[in-house]
């Protein structure tokens, strides 16, 4: 295997790419996917589309792999005395923000810190409780006149926590949701270099998932796949997170089951996982998954979906944690599944 998965992942974790501002991360993903695929293109909204052709007779059936590449973050709303006020892009818990290192993407990239004003400068009801986002500030260490020159309202602010290698093959960083899954797609494409597959494989690094699954509506419309595999992260068990919505970290992937998921497709996928002894948890999603599948299944006349998830601790913090072997498991399962797909696979998907 020529792919250095860890380096690839850490490179992605070092890049910004907030929802609708995905250019920096898209370039990195494109560079990784170019040698592994036959065609690359960028959708109207900025999703990266990569085609790896199958060897079946034309017209070949198409499978879509969808992994969103956008990140949550902040956006500047006002500037007071050189301090930036911010709002959120995507689901940010304001309680994790005080003291976070960030990059303000102004006229140039500016390192900064999210800061919590002292109690006497805040409304009395805040007291010693969490400081709401509207009262947090970003300090970029420049004099107010310089700040006014370099930053304006609407500039985006990304997390700047560098990636960390932890023990037991785990990695921490910001935006492992969902760069971990982009890495799984890369791993899958790498495995497929040495496997025959009849189907065309469309790998998509989708945009704007965190603010409403936008890319997951538009790319399937353009590509028109026969079915789709979405890749995302899910909640790993960890401190304070132990209920039924969580799965163990590093002990296998999660395969979602619920109304976003086509049951026959799920069964076909788990059959391969069982045959290959790839460990997985069956993840109950009784309502909606909160992933690209929720959009993809409703595109055009409906697209059957499955969801492959990598367990992750501390979701939507700058210190999310995943196990690299879970990423490999996700990529390998999908590659093996694709390579085993018969041309007439869609005819075998029966509602029972």
């Amino acid at each position: 295997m020529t792919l250095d998965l860890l380096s690839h992942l850490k490179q992605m974790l070092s890049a910004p790419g907030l929802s609708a501002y995905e250019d920096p991360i898209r370039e990195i993903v494109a560079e990784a996917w170019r040698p592994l695929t036959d065609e690359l293109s960028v959708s109207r909204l900025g999703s990266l589309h990569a085609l790896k052709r199958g060897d079946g007779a034309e017209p070949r059936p198409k499978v879509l792999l969808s992994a969103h590449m956008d990140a949550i973050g902040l956006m500047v709303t006002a500037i007071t005395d050189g301090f930036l006020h911010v709002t959120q892009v995507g689901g940010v818990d304001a309680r994790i923000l005080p003291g976070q290192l960030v990059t303000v993407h102004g006229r140039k990239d500016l390192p900064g810190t999210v800061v919590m004003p002292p109690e006497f400068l805040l409304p009395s009801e805040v007291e010693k409780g969490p400081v709401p986002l509207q009262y947090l500030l970003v300090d970029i260490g420049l004099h107010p006149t310089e700040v006014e020159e370099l930053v304006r309202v609407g500039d985006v602010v990304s997390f700047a926590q560098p990636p960390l290698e932890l023990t037991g093959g785990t990695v921490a960083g910001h935006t492992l949701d969902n760069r971990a899954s982009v890495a799984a797609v890369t791993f899958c494409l790498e495995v497929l270099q040495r496997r025959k597959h009849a189907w065309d494989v469309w790998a998509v690094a989708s945009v704007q998932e965190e603010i409403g699954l936008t890319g997951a509506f538009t790319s399937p419309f353009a590509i028109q796949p026969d079915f789709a595999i979405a890749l995302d992260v899910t909640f790993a068990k960890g401190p304070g997170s132990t209920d039924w919505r969580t799965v163990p970290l590093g002990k296998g992937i999660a395969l979602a089951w619920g109304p976003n998921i086509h049951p026959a497709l799920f069964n076909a996928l788990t059959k391969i996982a069982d045959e290959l002894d790839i460990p997985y948890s069956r993840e109950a999603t009784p309502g909606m998954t909160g992933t690209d599948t929720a959009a993809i299944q409703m595109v055009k006349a409906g697209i059957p979906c499955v969801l492959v998830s990598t367990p992750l601790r501390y979701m939507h913090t700058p210190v999310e944690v995943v196990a690299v072997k879970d990423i490999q498991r996700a990529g390998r399962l999908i590659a093996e599944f694709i390579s085993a797909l018969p041309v007439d696979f869609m005819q075998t998907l029966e509602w029972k």
Partner: protein
Amino acid sequence: MSSQKQPSITTPPEVGSAQVELLTRLCNAMAVSGDEQEVRQIVLEEIQPYCDQVEVDGLGNVLATRLGSQAQKVRVMIAAHMDEVGFMLTNDEGEGLFSFETVGGIDPRQLVGKAVIVGREHTPAVIGAKPIHLTTPEERKRVPKVEELRIDFGLEGSSKAKVGDRATFATQLEVLGPSIRAKALDNRLGVINLIELLRHAPDNIDLLAAFTVQEEVGLRGARVAAYRFDPQIGMAIDATPAHDLPAYDADVENTRYNTKLDHGPAIYLMDGATISDRRLAEWLIQTAEAENIPWQIRQPNPGGTDAGAIHRTRAGVPSISVSVPVRYAHSAASLIRQEDWAHTLKLVYHALTRLTPEILS
């Protein structure tokens, strides 16, 4: 001890790239109260050539003496605490998760979602947070308690750490234009300033430099250091909060800023632990005026420095504190202006050169 000490550098101390480089080493080192060894090691290496005597006392203070050569000398003790706030691991729960306690005053709102370093090896770990998706609206209205949080080393972390290990924020020092951002600027600024003062010590004083331990947990090192040195004058050099941020309501003036960045060294008249000696305050202010150094009075309010312990030692030591204003002290990322640092160093240096025994008469 050493009879071949290097002569003092006779020019005033400056803040240049060499000082920023040393501050980087000092701030990136870990010295949580009670385990100051990493900073103590750097201090010992840096000051040895310039001192007449250096010892490490029973609590871990570095006590360095540089004797002046003039006949009429003043024995001045300057204290800078080496320790920083941080964490101690309290229980190994397996699978790389440890419970922990804070050491020194850290607001629990500063903890979640942070990278930390643990132990002498600076093993990386993180303090996570429950995902927002899994929290209830009630949970989001309260601050996670320290006992709910864990330091997470990854799946096999239990081999990397043990109960009792210290930890601190992983932030590396960075220069941001006119500013410097780092952890532990409180009080590595005092430490580096004291190192520079030893190198540039004037001959009209015996400089008794105390690099103290355990300030953040109760001014413990300074008490015994002052006893040992038995000085005529005591001074703590430290970092003090600059709460110079805008109020949420633009119509409300911030009158409780404590200190402000860009306004120079903060001279103490009163804090929670000390009322400064008025003669020493005049001495510092007159020096600043004469040398054209900007200065400010730290707003009288609670808080304290090593001077709180020094001035009550033995039969009493006239004492004062001077601090560099620092935003966001005791968090992962504090911030100073380089100019304020340089001005603080310059003020203390020039004040020392003007010091005569008459100040106490």
